[in-house]
């Protein structure tokens, strides 16, 4: 079964840019949308919202713990707050508040982390977030989303706003290849089958969806049929799509721009083990912090490109049967 459509994967806007743009649309549609930022609005792109709705943009200064608490207070009083900063700061410095002020009482706050993963590049590991998906997923009731490109980010941020309850969305700094050219619908908790396939499944999110597509195309040329799933929602997982992948393709690779510990991979593995155990391989950051460099150089060095997905796929296929 050859791949039907060729993906161009043209460079598109960064997912943080898509977040900033859709936030303005949401602000126009709903007066209860308010935005908190911690002195990074020009980077998180909440600056667009700040310009159009200065009264509903709340500058919190470099104080993420308080910002998350402020957002919780706003939500308790009926607002729909989006609190945003780099993932490395808002989740790590605001984690206790995400736990006690948001998750535990189940308060309607949206946390959007930007500059996630190592592809932020030159700024280096203190600014790179490689743990936050694991942390956010550990909080009962939190929905955790890592979209791949512009249109999926916009759609899923809209869904986050409409959902009543805590949501964390992981976005990135660099231009994200365009995976979806319109027409695709997105739903929290529903994986998108980007490419049909029958020999093996690659489950990915964020920037790794494009890498998975490149890998699938390369393997397709060799006659290997690779299913690609965009598992944009890390929690709750689409366990039915995972079950089908396990049963129908018999081998699974998970690829993410996050530490392998506690990320999408281990969550998918748990689901696979519960439903239909099959061989699995994992593409992700291995128990280390990265370094400064250009985003492409870093993704290459730390094993997060199509080459690595292909290698993991060959390995898992060798283990199959």
């Amino acid at each position, binding site marked *: 079964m050859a791949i039907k459509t060729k993906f161009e994967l043209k460079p598109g806007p960064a997912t943080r840019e898509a977040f900033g743009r859709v936030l303005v649309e949401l602000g126009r549609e709903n007066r209860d949308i308010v935005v908190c930022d911690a002195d990074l609005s020009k980077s998180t792109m909440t600056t667009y919202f700040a310009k159009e709705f200065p009264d509903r943009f709340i500058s919190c200064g470099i104080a993420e*713990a308080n910002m998350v*608490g*402020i957002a*919780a*207070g*706003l939500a308790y*009083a*009926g607002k729909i*707050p989006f609190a945003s900063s780099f993932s490395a700061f808002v989740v790590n410095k605001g984690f206790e508040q995400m736990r006690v002020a948001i998750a535990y009482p189940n308060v309607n706050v949206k946390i959007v982390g930007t500059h996630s993963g190592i592809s932020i590049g030159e700024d280096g590991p203190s600014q790179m977030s490689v743990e936050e998906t694991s942390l956010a997923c550990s909080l009962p009731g939190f929905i955790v989303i890592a979209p791949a490109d512009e249109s999926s980010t916009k759609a899923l941020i809209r869904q986050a706003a409409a959902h009543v309850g805590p949501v964390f969305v992981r976005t990135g700094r660099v231009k994200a290849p365009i995976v979806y050219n319109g027409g695709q619908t997105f739903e929290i908790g529903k994986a998108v089958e980007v490419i049909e396939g029958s020999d093996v499944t690659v489950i990915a999110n964020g920037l790794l969806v494009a890498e998975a597509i490149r890998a699938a195309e390369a393997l397709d040329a060799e006659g290997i049929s690779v299913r690609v799933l965009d598992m944009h929602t890390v929690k709750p997982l689409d366990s039915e799509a995972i079950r089908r992948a396990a049963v129908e393709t018999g081998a699974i690779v998970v690829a993410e721009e996050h530490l392998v510990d506690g990320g999408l991979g281990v969550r998918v593995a748990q689901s696979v083990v519960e439903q239909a155990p099959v061989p699995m391989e994992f593409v992700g950051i291995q128990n280390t912090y990265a370094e400064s460099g250009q985003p492409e150089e870093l993704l290459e060095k730390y094993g997060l490109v199509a080459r690595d997905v292909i290698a993991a796929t060959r390995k898992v296929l060798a283990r199959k049967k």
Partner: protein
Amino acid sequence: MSKSLQELEDIAKRVRRDIVQMTGAAKSGHPGGSLSAVELIVELYFDYMHIDPQNPKWPDRDRFILSKGHAAPVLYSVMAEAGFTPKDQLNTLRKLGSIYQGHPDIRFIPSLEASTGSLGGGVSLALGMGLAARLDGRQFRTYVMLGDGEIQEGQVWEGAMFGSYHKVDNVVAIVDYNGIQLDGFVKDIMEVAPLADKWRSFGWHTLEIDGHDLAAVRKAYAEAEATKGKPTAIVAHTIKGKGVSFMENNPKFHGVAPTPAEVELALKELQ
């Protein structure tokens, strides 16, 4: 709900009796910091705040957040006395299935304004509520009570900076300045003095009062309401364990419940 001073004093005494009995029955809990906060909270719930136990989620109600969540017994007693929650279940405090959880939990008591218990968080919540009131053009005020040990948490000061910068003048922070925290006297653990100066320097209108003087407490809430352009901090000088001689100023009763014999002794003093 306005009440006379005598009525408020009677309520305060009943609340103190509840605190002793509840923590005694639970065999754990925090009686000392509950007893120190009695007048400050009784004055709010029975005199100053606009609230309606029949309509606890009324959007324009005033709000109270117990940031020092370990003082839950005082809040539970007051809320039960005010008619928000059942009085006859107070002695189920901290027991499995009780709505009176160890620290305030909005999942069990929806008429609470927030779940608290991890120190340092309440000021941020109150300021968020205050901002929401301003955005929506509502007149409600939000009160948040902190412990003096609690203000060692950095988040409190992030919030303090935020509150004055954003001129959240519908928020009042009340510091229950009883001088004792879990490990001992505040001055021996991490001195917080000069406390009023700290709040002033962070841009809050700051008052110092005797936190057991109901008239002074009422006057402070009125002065806070009249203060525009900045939030108000009320540094309330209180006595840990107030009202029970052997608990007063005794660090042991920060987080240790009275024994049955001590409960009996305490109730005699609180006749």
